[in-house]
């Protein structure tokens, strides 16, 4: 398709003459073409939502998990290549457990973010491996308050009020920017994420999807857990109704 990176894109350890690392950019493209993932850092916690494209009608609902808890108060949503994401999740679980064992205290969000960034970055330093084709959304609620981090395949990590990745990221970001994230509560955020996901989903062109959500908030006792099934369903119903009403009034 493209001859842009010809010759300089064969290994993550090779720069191009204009200073680009093509393998990292390609890894980013793997994330960009996968299902949309949205994270919102609210006044009282953090909410994560994943658009899980349903590949087969035979799949059991709730399988193919994209969101995992890595410590009591921390969770990760995987965007992009799921097996690479699972590798990051397992690493995070291991980091959190070892930290707790040695220091006697739960790992802080910003420390986990640093650890995962350094880990992602490793894969662009050696010739025998490839970068992770995944962007990690890290939700944490510790003594420094609720935090949302996004760690990219290159190892770049940033802290966000709201972020999105995947196919619908541009539209999702536009919607996120309209929200007042300083005042938004997690309960409201669940509804907003459902609304955003259904708004950007094109019924005619896109495959059906399942919405998987998790949160860590004051109401969950600062534990990272899946958003209860009823709450997600109610949010989805409300989102569908709101979109129908908007369509009808056009």
């Amino acid at each position, binding site marked *: 398709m493209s001859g842009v990176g010809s010759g300089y894109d064969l290994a993550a350890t090779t720069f191009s003459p204009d200073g680009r690392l093509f393998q990292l950019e390609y890894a980013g493209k793997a994330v960009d073409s996968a299902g949309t993932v949205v994270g919102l850092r609210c006044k009282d916690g953090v909410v994560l939502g994943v658009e899980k494209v349903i590949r087969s009608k035979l799949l059991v609902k709730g399988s193919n998990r994209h969101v995992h808890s890595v410590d009591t108060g921390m969770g990760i949503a995987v965007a992009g290549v799921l097996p690479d994401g699972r590798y990051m999740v397992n690493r995070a679980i291991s980091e959190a457990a070892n930290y707790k064992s*040695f*220091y*006697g*205290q739960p790992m*802080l969000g*910003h420390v986990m973010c640093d650890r995962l960034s350094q880990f992602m970055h490793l894969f662009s330093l050696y010739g025998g491996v490839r970068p992770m084709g995944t962007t990690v959304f890290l939700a944490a609620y510790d003594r420094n308050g609720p935090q949302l981090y996004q760690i990219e395949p290159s190892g770049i990590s940033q802290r966000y009020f709201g972020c999105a990745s995947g196919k619908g990221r541009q539209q999702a970001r536009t919607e996120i920017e309209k929200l007042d994230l300083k005042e938004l509560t997690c309960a409201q955020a669940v509804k907003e994420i459902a609304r955003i996901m259904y708004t950007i989903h094109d019924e005619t062109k896109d495959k059906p999807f399942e919405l998987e959500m998790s949160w860590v908030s004051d109401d969950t006792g600062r534990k990272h857990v899946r958003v209860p099934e009823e709450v997600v369903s109610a949010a989805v119903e409300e989102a569908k109704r709101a979109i129908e009403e908007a369509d009808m009034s056009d």
Partner: protein
Amino acid sequence: RGGWGGMAGQAQAVSTGTTIVAVAFDGGVVLGADSRVSTGTYVSNRASDKITPLGGQAFLCRSGSAADTEAISDYVRHFVRQHEGELQEDPDVATVARMAMSINYQNKDRLMGAMIVAGWDAHEGGQVWSLPIGGTLVRTPWAIDGSGSTYIWGFLDSEYREGMTEAETVEFVKTAVALAMARDGSSGGVIRTVTVTAEGSKRGLFTGKSIPQFQDELPEPAWVR
């Protein structure tokens, strides 16, 4: 043989036969120690400093084998430094205490370090953590250790009160160490204190006349200026 402990015949390990004390108050802690280091009956250092900073606002009182506790404190300072780099702030006193404990526990068959970690942090305020030989870690309002501590358990059990001020706690610690020094041959010299609060740490040194005297002490001769 015998005579100078360590210089002829069997060498005896350098020991901090010691008195160490740490007491928490509302707003901080006061750590106190004597300054005698002995090799058998020979006092190899009569003015040593048994209170070591570990990093952040955490300090270590050392008793037992001098070599072991010095080595442990070096390791803990190293770990604390690495941890600070990742945390980008001072570690909690509880974390520092735990690091010291894990060295004691994982090497329990080789080490003889009876220590107290005490300090102040923004999350729990003033804290005292006991680290006896073997690798226990337990937080207490006050802690004592070393050979001299046997003589002052009754004093602390009876006289410790919650809600003392900083000045009262310094006097309390000074009195405790002085009482132990009076009866324990392996404790003596000067009394060193460290007071740790939100504002930082202050060192105190009490020598000669400023060390409280008790019963049976010889009165000072009239010709002493």
